[in-house]
């Protein structure tokens, strides 16, 4: 039953996104505008742009994940659908896995688009190990979606609502952003030595967030 619940949540969230286009209409323009603004602020120095590109890419992904997770739970809060999840006998851990998986898919799409923008605007090279770069992207996004999907719930249940989400997410997600940025920077500059350490750190934090989310999601959902 747990798998069926998780699949149903993924299908429902993705269908909602396709129909409401909230990521396309708000999150993507936000990320693109942010990258453009930084691009113009940093000036035409191609070397400087390429140096800063990995950090800007992950900052854009971070802010996009905060907005996306907030919107995802706003959909749940409308008509008290969140209470529908609470009052169902479904495994709440499976609900969390579904929410995190749906956020993961959306953020991966977003990362692909923003990476394209960064490659064109900032001249970011793909480097000699595109598979490792892809793995970095997957692991980094996994960290953002697992943590965002947990804290998004906490934010929508809190009285301060949206303001609570960045306050909760930003300190906790720092290790993921640092590791993903460092790995991206090294790989795009052709450095593969020591990359295993950053990827290992990403795997560790992803696993920790996923386990924590699976365990505590139900408790956060309760009154």
């Amino acid at each position, binding site marked *: 039953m747990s798998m069926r619940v998780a699949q149903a949540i993924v299908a429902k969230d993705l*269908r909602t996104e396709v129909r409401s286009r909230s990521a396309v209409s708000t999150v993507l323009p936000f990320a693109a505008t942010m990258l453009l603004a930084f691009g113009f602020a940093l000036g035409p120095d191609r070397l400087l742009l390429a140096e800063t590109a990995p950090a800007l890419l992950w900052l854009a992904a971070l802010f996009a994940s905060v907005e996306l997770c907030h919107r995802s739970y706003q*959909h749940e809060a409308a*008509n008290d*659908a969140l209470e529908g999840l609470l*009052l*169902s*006998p479904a495994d709440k851990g499976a609900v969390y896995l579904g929410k995190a998986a749906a956020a993961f898919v959306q953020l991966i799409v977003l990362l692909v688009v923003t990476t394209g923008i960064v490659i064109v605007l900032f001249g970011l090279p793909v480097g000699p190990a595109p598979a490792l770069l892809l793995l970095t992207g997957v692991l980094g996004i996994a960290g953002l979606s697992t943590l965002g999907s947990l804290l998004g719930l906490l934010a929508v249940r809190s009285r301060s609502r949206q303001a609570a989400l960045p306050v909760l997410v930003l300190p906790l997600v720092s290790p993921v952003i640092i590791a993903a940025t460092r790995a991206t920077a090294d790989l795009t500059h052709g450095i593969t030595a020591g990359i295993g350490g950053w990827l290992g750190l990403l795997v560790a934090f992803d696993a920790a967030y996923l386990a924590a989310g699976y365990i505590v999601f139900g408790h956060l959902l309760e009154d």
Partner: protein
Amino acid sequence: MTAPQRAAARLSRVTRLFDGLAAVSQVSLEIAQGETVWLRGWNGSGKTTLLRLIATAISPTFGDGSVLGFDLRAERSAIRARTDLLSHETRLYGDLTAAENLRFACSLYDIDARLAEPALERVGLEEVAAVRVGRYSQGMRQRLALARCLMRAPALVLLDEPYAALDADARVVVDELLTTARAGRRTAVVASHEAPPAHLIDREVMMDGGRVTAPAGVVPS
């Protein structure tokens, strides 16, 4: 009507505080299995809070109880699998169609998705089953929530102001739900300003100021 044997809900001195104020205070109440109870009271009398406590949407601050034989605090999942709370908040997704909403509920409750179609027919929404719920009127949403409840056929149905925002046809659906519940020896609690049809009700429980004030099955202390 023959006297039911087991309690569908048994509350003992249940109190629920919100910011220090008691929405429900020291309520002891017993609802027998198969009974249909009309929960009466003015706005703010605590009817909705009481329903939400029984549904395990919220926890009691003090007191304890059981629903369908399961502990109100420790066995919430078992209670939720057998209970449905219908209120003006329909818990539907506006970007999904009616059929998709019901199929989603089937996944959550682990029931056969083929039950969705007949449930939509019973509430008269089969022709708009493929329309997104965001385009529905409040009355149509209420009907869809009723369809979800009909599809699940829970052992305990909790209806919070079920007649509000409904036209005459949809009111019939609510009455049908109560009739079906009675026929199936299932329990229903209707919190409403408006009296449900007398033949569908076994007894009334009056609430005022968060307390049960008129006849109720009181749990001996």
